[in-house]
């Protein structure tokens, strides 16, 4: 958040509540490790009590009592509707049962392609990252994919990802279908500490949807290596409510392991 913000909330709390606001009741969401899990939990505890949360290792429809450390631990089916397998949930995802995929990433380009594999050369990388995990699958199959990038900068918003781990719109309009990916899928929103972005229908390029309070267009532009489409009309992002913050701090992440103290 901008420096002039009061200290009512921190950046990660803001990202979590912004993510939660995008999720609808009565829909399904496939959540990855970290902030996506928190956003899903917050949505479930506020406006979307019947949000169907699905974890890649086989946890289906839990009512989460505390924040899981892993997308495979027992909590991921706590008071759930099924404890099943990766084959089952990934097949359902491929067959079209998942509305939202919710992912993090290290680098993203203007088409929403994500890198979580390596920085530098693949054979002898400068930094080796964990790889796809379930991200390639989720972004291939979910009807809409939401991406959280906590630190938008020229280093994370890049012209070309070092490694295209997870598909956005690939090289542009029509490229997903041409590659054989399920039709009418792709990235839907990108959430960063500065703004929320969507994708232009004609060019498939990233465009501004809402600026966070106190953030300027210049800051958005200065923190991206590619040109972000700025439409004439854009909104100001909603701030977390006091209730959101109380739930995040007391119920979801009391140790502050992800949202910080």
């Amino acid at each position, binding site marked *: 958040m901008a420096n002039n913000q009061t200290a009512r909330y921190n950046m990660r709390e803001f990202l979590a509540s912004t993510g939660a606001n995008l999720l609808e009741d009565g829909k399904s969401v496939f959540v990855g490790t970290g902030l996506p899990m928190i956003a899903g939990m917050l949505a479930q505890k506020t406006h979307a009590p019947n949000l169907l949360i699905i974890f890649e*290792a086989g946890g289906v429809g839990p009512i989460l009592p505390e924040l899981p450390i892993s997308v495979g631990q027992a909590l991921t089916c706590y008071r759930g509707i099924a404890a099943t397998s*990766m084959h089952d949930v990934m097949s359902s995802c*491929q067959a079209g049962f998942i509305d939202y995929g919710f992912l993090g990433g290290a680098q993203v380009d203007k088409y929403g392609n994500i890198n979580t594999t390596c920085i530098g050369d693949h054979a002898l990388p400068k930094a080796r990252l964990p*790889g796809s995990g379930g991200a390639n*699958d989720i972004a291939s*199959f979910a009807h809409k994919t939401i991406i959280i990038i906590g630190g938008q900068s020229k280093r994370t918003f890049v012209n070309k990802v070092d490694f295209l*781990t997870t598909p956005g719109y690939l090289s542009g309009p029509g490229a997903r279908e041409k590659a*054989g990916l399920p039709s009418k899928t792709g990235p839907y929103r990108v959430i960063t500490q500065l703004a929320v972005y969507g994708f232009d229908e004609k060019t498939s390029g990233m465009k501004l949807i809402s600026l966070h309070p106190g953030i300027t267009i210049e800051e958005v532009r200065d923190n991206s290596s590619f040109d972000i489409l700025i439409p004439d009309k854009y909104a100001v992002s909603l701030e977390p409510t006091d209730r959101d913050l109380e739930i995040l701090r007391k119920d979801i992440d009391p140790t502050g392991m992800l949202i910080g103290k």
Partner: protein
Amino acid sequence: MEVLHEGLGELVGWHDPDENREFVLHNKSRALKDKTMTASEAVASFVKNGDFIASGGFGHIRVSMNIIYEIIRQHKRNLTMAGKTAVHDLDLLVGNGCVNKVEVAYSFGHEVRGLSPAGRRMVESGKCKVIGEISNAGYQWRFLAGMMGLPFIPSRNLLGTDTGKYSSCKVVTDPFSGKPINLIPAAYPDVAFIHVHRCDIYGNCQIDGIMVEDFELARCARKLIITTEEIIDNEIIRREPWRTNIPFYVVDAVIEQPYGSHPCEMHGKYFFDEEHIAEWLSLSKTDEGVRQYSDKYIFGVKDFDEYLEACGGLKKIAFLQKREAMRVPLVTPWRK
């Protein structure tokens, strides 16, 4: 069928389906026989240098850690590991020089705990090679094709990405829809090890909670070592046969090891030992630290029971049981 793209990744663990049927015919017994043995005997008999290995569970969930420690204790070398969300197990094996090749879906990270110092150091210095990339569903479906006795399984992931390009998959034109479709090659690991809640002496297993990929992995592995929290009577299996997740005829060894997933979680029984994982994450920042860890917890003890004592024994176990039941708060000692 026209091949549109061919992945650059090394194809590991693939066999012609007829060749694998021959292997099954001659090596997987359908006789009901007692397969109980020690971890040391199982690793000595079934894990060979150069093997392609796969570990059950998921990340730090329900992992056969007593077999992992035994592989290190027996100095196995040049192993290739399925990085099918392999985390703590892989990190220990890579850090100790047992595994030097990995096919990666998710590796070298500990989810919210951070990245793996040991695994990353070995990859970034070239001592451990990433021989291919794939996704979690992709790996899962390698095992599915294997258990079905098929050469490959079609899928709609990995398409258009570098993950697909660096995998061992091929993209062809689907003769039905006319669209490009990804073909994921079958995997038949030389040996897999899976930790379960309970099984009988023959290897009929019950797993509580999510199966992750173990239904498929158990059935495609050429050799399967089962470690179990407890051995139960065959009559209990027969009373509720719908609870059998893994049948005896795919199992080669049964080892009873209570708390055998430590420091990983066991659904409904015990939580992650966050203090122990934090100790590894801290020590594994240097090669010297890896040696210190292994001297203390692997080479300095004769077996897994002694290891559990070194980790805090009954007192620690009682705490992890309470934590799994959410009766005590979470501790996160790995936080910076």
